[in-house]
């Protein structure tokens, strides 16, 4: 039992990311409203970004910007002193991708609204079937 609690506590960031991912996935599958699905999609993507950022964290380290004096005096750099920068780089890209996807999805939703005058998927499908 103690072990289990330790695992749960030691990796709580990962549990939160899984929870958020499940929320997002659930919203994308179940919700009927197109914009709600887009919100779910964004939560889903952000959860994955949270996961990556968590992998980069390092105990006892500082942000990945090197100290640099202007006195020309070179510091000795230890890898253990700085947080892993690679996941941050990847996630900058992922954030950009998520906002790009958001823009396209909203544009599509507006097109659909202009045609069908509703954002509910079942109502749109009913309109299509009537034709």
């Amino acid at each position, binding site marked *: 039992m103690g072990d289990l609690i330790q695992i749960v506590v030691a990796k709580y960031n990962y549990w939160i990311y899984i929870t958020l991912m*499940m929320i997002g996935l*659930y919203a994308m599958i179940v919700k009927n409203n197109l914009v709600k699905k887009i919100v779910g999609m964004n939560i889903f993507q952000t959860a994955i970004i949270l996961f990556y950022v968590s992998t980069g964290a390092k105990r006892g380290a500082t942000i990945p910007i090197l100290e640099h004096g202007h006195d020309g005096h070179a510091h000795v750099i230890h890898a253990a002193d700085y947080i892993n920068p690679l996941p941050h780089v990847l996630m900058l890209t992922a954030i950009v991708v998520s*906002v790009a996807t958001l823009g396209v999805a909203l544009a599509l939703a507006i097109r659909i609204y202009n045609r069908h005058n509703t954002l509910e998927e079942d109502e749109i499908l009913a309109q299509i079937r009537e034709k």
Partner: protein
Amino acid sequence: MKILGLIIALSTGVLLICATVDFPGWADPASPASTHLSPHFIEKTMEETSVPNIVTAVLADYRGYDTMYETAVIFTAGLACFILLRIFVREEPGDRLYRHVLTGVTVRVKEGAKLPPSEDFERIDATWTPPDLIIKTICRFLIPFIQLFALYVIAHGHHSPGGGFQGGVILGASIILLAISQDLRTSVRRLREKLDAVLCAVGVIIYAGTGALCLLLGLNFLDYSALASVLHCDPVTARSHGILIVEIGVGIAVMCTMIWIYNNVSSTGKYDEGL
């Protein structure tokens, strides 16, 4: 559908939880992620690129190829919103509202009818409210400072958090703020649609073109040290300058794309009435 969704979400969650059990501990300095590649980046960045912000160096140099496509993704999104939403209308459809500036009288012009050309009338949105003095003044004060800060973020990305992307978004946001606080026509008058769209492409071309220039100078694509012969400096400094050039390209591309997407989404592609 609800139950199916719940089952899918939960089974994904269970799969992920099972896989997570075998992970190295959270924030463990001895985990593979922290010991395989990242020590090289942390220890060598300064001597190889002379950029203190490791994230900027990795983003624009070691993995600069990713970032070029990241900019291309943003550009694609702008183009996608444009092609999806933009409607080119010669005659403005529907009734329009005009306001007589001197008297404050609002005139509704029926579809197809035209107002005599006059300086006294200004076009207003259907949901127009009298301009709020506080909002207008504060935005007028804020926008230059926001833009100044954005330029600082782009230029100072080597030494502090930030860079082309963040700065570009802030620049774009300042124009979007103008569009929200006044109206879309004011902001479009500042940055015409055509110029905006061309600048989007130009931003990415600056990035990819810098890479192609390196290729023409005889080294691999995006190997900024090739720029040393053009910039008259040593290869390491050339890398630092190369990063600055591409960050400026990213900034331009992102700023214009954000404005482009906003303009198209907020006016459903008609470019007449914004938020």
